[in-house]
């Protein structure tokens, strides 16, 4: 096996359900309007960029496992099915040969908050239907059940830098022959509790919700579709390495930019949060997009959106190489790089 291809992408975001609205929104660079999110005990609400209501209702929501599932499961499944494309049909591959890696930061917070609220009210009446949906791996489990997938299935938890780590893990499973295809999904759902927590650190920050997914397969012998070409080491935020140093270390590990290269960074439009990344890329001269400035801080969904945009830009001939920069919330800085089959001279810049 000579490499790892990105066969498909999927997304749910405040721009809409699907990759197309995500792409259009990021290219238009028009922030999605934030909507009020009532916060118990406060007169004024928090603000959030919600994923819009689906229209029409996706067929998968009638699956028994998804009828009660929380929004994060719906987002993760929708993005995964879009990324799989025709291979979403369970008959398309042996069920034990599809790997699933779900990456989350705050995870199933809606039901966790609701269940704990019931426990505080009266533990004797807390709902046994809600509790199982609080576990981090519930969305990945629902997806596996829907697809009939019986193979390896991980849920990884951490800051948004975990999504590129998930890509590297999926690539490793493919290279080692552990799986024949691997879905890597980043997903989050909005909740006042998460918004309240982030507001303690950054008052101007507006969260977003949704999911992004990449479907990885071994690179074919012939043809050069979009491929994952690098994932840097995760550079941890520690006593000995602050955010700025970690971001610089990530940048230094990435190859020198090529003509026609696109940078998809993780800036959110809040200087205190963006400073490390802005400084790390201050000499960047190529095209650059900042999906989270228009979609909100989607946490793990946000870094997944970045990767989806990078792959889409390659597929649409808008760059020859796309680099994704993720300077996470509290854990690490990490970069990923994708390459396509278009030469710089043929690129139509963004």
């Amino acid at each position: 096996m000579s490499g790892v291809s990105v066969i498909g992408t999927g997304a749910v975001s405040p721009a809409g359900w699907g990759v197309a609205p995500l792409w259009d929104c990021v290219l238009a660079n028009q922030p999605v309007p934030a909507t009020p999110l009532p916060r118990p005990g406060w007169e004024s609400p928090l603000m959030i960029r919600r994923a819009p209501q689906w229209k029409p209702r996706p067929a998968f929501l009638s699956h028994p496992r998804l009828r009660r599932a929380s929004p994060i499961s719906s987002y993760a499944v929708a993005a995964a099915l879009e990324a799989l494309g025709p291979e979403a049909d369970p008959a398309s591959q042996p069920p034990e040969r599809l790997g699933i890696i779900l990456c989350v930061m705050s995870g199933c917070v809606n039901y966790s908050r609701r269940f704990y609220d019931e426990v505080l009210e009266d533990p004797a009446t807390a709902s046994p239907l809600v509790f199982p949906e609080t576990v981090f791996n519930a969305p990945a489990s629902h997806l596996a059940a829907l697809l009939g997938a019986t193979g390896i299935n991980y849920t990884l938890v951490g800051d948004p830098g975990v999504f590129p780590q998930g890509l590297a893990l999926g690539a490793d499973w493919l290279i080692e022959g552990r799986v024949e295809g691997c879905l890597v999904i980043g997903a989050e759902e909005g909740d006042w509790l998460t918004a309240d927590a982030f507001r303690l650190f950054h008052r101007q920050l507006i969260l977003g919700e949704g999911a992004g997914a990449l479907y990885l397969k071994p690179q074919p012998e012939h043809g050069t579709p979009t491929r994952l070409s690098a994932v840097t080491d995760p550079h941890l935020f520690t006593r000995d390495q602050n955010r700025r140093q970690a971001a610089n270390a990530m940048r230094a590990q990435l190859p020198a930019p090529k003509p026609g290269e696109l940078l998809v960074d993780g800036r959110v439009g809040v200087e205190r949060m963006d400073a490390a990344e802005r400084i790390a890329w201050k000499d960047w001269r190529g095209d650059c997009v900042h999906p989270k400035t228009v979609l909100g801080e989607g946490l793990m969904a946000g870094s997944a959106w970045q990767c989806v945009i990078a792959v889409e830009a390659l597929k649409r001939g808008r760059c020859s190489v796309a680099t994704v920069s993720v300077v996470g919330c509290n854990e690490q800085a990490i970069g990923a790089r994708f390459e396509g089959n278009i030469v710089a001279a043929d690129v139509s810049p963004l």
Partner: protein
Amino acid sequence: MLFSPSYRSTPKQRVAITGAGIVTGLGAGWTPNADGFRTGARAFRPVTLFDVSGQRVRIAAEVDLPETLPDLNMTVREWRRMDRAARLLLMATREAWAQSGWRRDPSQSLPIVLGTTSGGMSLGEAYYRQAIRQPHRHRGQPTRVLHYQAQQQALTAAEAFGVRGPITVIANACASGANAIGHGWECIRNGHATRVLAGGFDALSQLVFAGFDSLQALSPTQCRPFDAQRDGLALGEGAAVVCLEAWEAAERRGARVLGEVIGYGAATDGHHLTQPHPDGAAAFASMTEACHRADVQAEQIGYVNAHGTGTPLNDSAEASAISRWAGPHANALAVSSTKASIGHLLGAAGAVEAVVCLMALEGQWLPPTATLRTPDPACGFEVVTKPRGARFDHALTNSFGFGGANATLILRRNP
């Protein structure tokens, strides 16, 4: 780089365990735990950490945590900010680290792979209570937000032992700890690292305790895995961490090798979010894959540390899977569930039970399920109920979780 185009599958490395740390309701450290598991001691007592007056069940296997922890690269203030889960993790890591003889080397990357179901949940609960009861009071909230998150607990461990990752936190429900050790094994086996710190941790919390109680999964009597009259599980808390090391590297530095991880399997059961398929197909697949990768047959396994929660559905499905996997050798197989001693440690369970296997292999004894009286007829194998010695070289441990997460590890004795 975590991934680059030059990555290729390389010849597989053997993986030694050169350090192991464990904290459970039986105590902190190898010796009290080995003594307890060998004799089938039980660690349950009334829950004191939160109010259980409204619950059906009011016991669990709590850990007695020390107020201070010396010999770590952290301040007293940092120690006090941490929740129980992080402290359990640090205690287990400290023991494993000391046993391995590893030295701090910030210039070297040392991956940390941890499994947990709920991270610092008790801090998350405290955050929520204050957020709704005193919505305009923020004192203490930022610290709770930061230390609630599992990656922060892993970062704390990295800081305490002077290592710089990468960090991987696997949250595959109650299989997480086994997945973490399995993933660490794969990192070394595939040539991505020479050393990995791997394990699992979880502390008791009100939300999780009430959750299992709401499902009526907690035993109102006594946790009796594989007993025909079993009526549920008991919860516990704890952590276990192992120092995994490429065999050749461990030999080169003259390290004492406690044992070897030789196999890992993982599979997903899509039957139900909380119930296994009655035939245990995913458990069977997980055990079969682990044996295949370990290049061992069922008859070579001398002891199975079963997931064995004590719930009617888990134990019958697992019994079916073990019987099918062992085939004609089932009647010669020794199986037990140490959850009868320490309860279900959720994200820590797989790692703790791997260390129990390591203890059993080293000491050549079989940990009993001391509460079993009448074996379930579905068990086509012996469930060990009395302490006894045994001669065996391979042990297998199963861990299954919500969401259909199934994981199996196989360990080999270092003669």
